[in-house]
């Protein structure tokens, strides 16, 4: 008796009790859909978090080594990165652009409103914004001339704008960083999606303006834009060697390892996905027990059918296979519907929310195989019960 014949027989039996079959499948459908949606959100979130934190470009970031940072109690000396260093870095093969970044926290005020501990960044290129995924919503980004000027304007974060200006137009207003007045020339878009909750009170200034505000010119971080991703490691090593050589030092500079950060993020989201995914798995288990339950009912109801089939030459194996395939068919149909539902919901989440839910096809395939496995596991007991029935008693069964 062929597999297809058995499947056809199973479909007939499932079709004969439509409502019951649908209700039984619901458990499997919800279980599989839940697992797919959760994993899709988890993976989408991971991709977004990784790109948000590490940027999209091929950037190598040089920062003070943790040892150096500790030894100096967090104070970066004025000569940490000199103009000579920057010239040298520009000449490393593969480096397309050298971007500098300085930062300091300072209190900030507008009229009577004061905010403490605002992050004030100084930068020599708009690329800093791009690499962090930040866009200018109102006003404008810095022009090349602004980077030359010692008194250009400031870009403020959306959250800061809300805090200081409320509904008022911030463009052209003068804020005070410490005692230094700075004109607001632009407002950044609020970060979306995964990082929305992380948004901060921030101000971005051109490097020279920053130096004037703080009366110092230390560069705390250098970002090198590299032409090819595969050159990043080499460029990073060369840059650190060059700086150590220029300053006659060791263990003073280090490359910020984005790969490590990325791995860390993946690790965290993976654990989350597994934990929440196993909750979905439990609902799948409950669905499987539903399948077993209904199959046991079905065996009892069809006792006479089993007797008839046996009297006509069905072996116990035939009966076992028949009920096993019926249970697998039931589970697999549930699994397939679950995948459709899960993918649909994931697509809807992507469409309607800032979350990007990525359906993982290996997980979807796993869902089908898993529901098939459940069909086998939860079908074995009822099928075995059916196969062990005595044909004579079955024929007498009312």
């Amino acid at each position, binding site marked *: *008796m062929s597999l297809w014949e058995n499947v056809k027989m199973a479909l007939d039996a499932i079709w004969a009790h439509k409502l019951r079959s649908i209700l039984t499948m619901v458990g499997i459908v919800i279980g599989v859909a839940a697992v797919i949606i959760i994993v899709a959100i988890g993976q989408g979130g991971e991709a977004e978090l990784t790109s948000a934190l590490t940027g999209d470009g091929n950037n190598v970031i040089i920062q003070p080594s943790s040892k150096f940072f500790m030894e100096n109690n967090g104070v970066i000396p004025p000569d940490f990165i000199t103009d000579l260093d920057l010239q040298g870095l520009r000449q490393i093969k593969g480096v397309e652009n050298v971007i500098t970044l300085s930062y300091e926290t300072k209190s900030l005020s507008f009229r009577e409103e004061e905010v403490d501990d605002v992050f004030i960044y100084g930068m020599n290129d708009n690329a800093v914004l791009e690499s962090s995924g930040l866009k200018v919503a109102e006003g404008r980004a810095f022009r090349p001339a602004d980077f030359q000027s010692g008194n250009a304007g400031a870009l403020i974060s959306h959250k800061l704008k809300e805090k200081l200006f409320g509904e008022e137009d911030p463009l052209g207003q003068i804020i005070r960083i410490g005692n230094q007045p700075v004109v607001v020339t632009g407002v950044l878009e609020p970060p979306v999606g995964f990082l929305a909750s992380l948004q901060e009170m921030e101000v971005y200034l051109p490097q020279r303006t920053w130096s004037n505000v703080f009366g110092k010119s230390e560069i705390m971080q250098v970002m090198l834009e590299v032409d090819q991703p595969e050159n990043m490691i080499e460029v990073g090593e060369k840059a650190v060697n060059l700086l150590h050589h220029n300053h006659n030092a060791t263990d003073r500079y280090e490359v910020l390892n984005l790969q490590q950060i990325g791995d860390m993020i993946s690790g965290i989201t993976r654990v989350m996905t597994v934990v929440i995914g196993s909750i979905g798995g439990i609902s799948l288990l409950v669905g499987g027990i539903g399948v077993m339950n209904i199959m046991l009912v079905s065996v009892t109801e069809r006792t006479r059918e089993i007797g*008839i089939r*046996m009297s006509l030459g*069905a072996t116990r194996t*035939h009966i076992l296979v028949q009920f096993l395939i019926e249970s697998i068919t039931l589970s697999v149909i549930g699994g397939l519907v679950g995948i459709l539902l899960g993918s649909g919901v994931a697509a809807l989440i992507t469409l309607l929310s800032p979350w990007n839910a990525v359906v993982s096809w290996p997980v979807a395939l796993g869902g089908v195989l898993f529901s098939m496995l459940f069909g086998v596991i939860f079908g074995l007991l009822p099928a075995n019960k059916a196969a062990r029935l005595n044909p*004579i008693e079955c024929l007498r069964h009312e």
Partner: protein
Amino acid sequence: MIQLEEVDKAYQMGSMTIPVLKGINLIINEGEYVAIMGPSGSGKSTLMNLIGCLDRPTSGHYYLNGEDVSKADERKLAAVRNRQIGFVFQQFQLLPRMTAQKNVELPLVYAGVSQKERTKRAIEALEKVGLGDRKDHRPTELSGGQQQRVAIARALINNPSIILADEPTGALDTSSGQRIMDIFDQLHQEGRTVVLITHDPEIAARAHRQILLRDGQIVEDQNQGKEVSG
């Protein structure tokens, strides 16, 4: 040929052993037309189950066409039921969800016959019992007599040498019953072994040999009205 030698059958009920058949010796030759009679509880259904390989004797031997099947395993018995025996039951025992044709095909499914061949043979078998135009009807859409004829077509489909019928007219009115009995007569004329189980003397009289069971033993065995030695 059906040959039973000193066959006992007993059922276990808790700690009690209840003997149902005691020392049955019986030979039914190929092509015989036999009726097994007896009051309820005499063991005639048990005897039919044994002959039909739905059950095995507790002791003794059962040779079917020369082969000892009393110790055969479940798989072997299923194959015997499939190919050598055609069952007809009092309650027809058709599968309600299937059409007449699909019901008739069922033994061929377990014999591993292709769909095309099955369809052809099922239609032939239904035509033989006069139901060629009812092949797509479900059992509930057929009268009792028609259902029993479908069951006979199903019993014949694998061309078995033995037809075993358990009260085949028990659930039918007289005229339907007559029609069914006519079919059995015809099967006998075709050379098949026909074994009927009945408590109706009129039905039993159509057979050429009557065996009477009482308390698990054969008490009478008449061939064409003459006694035969068991």
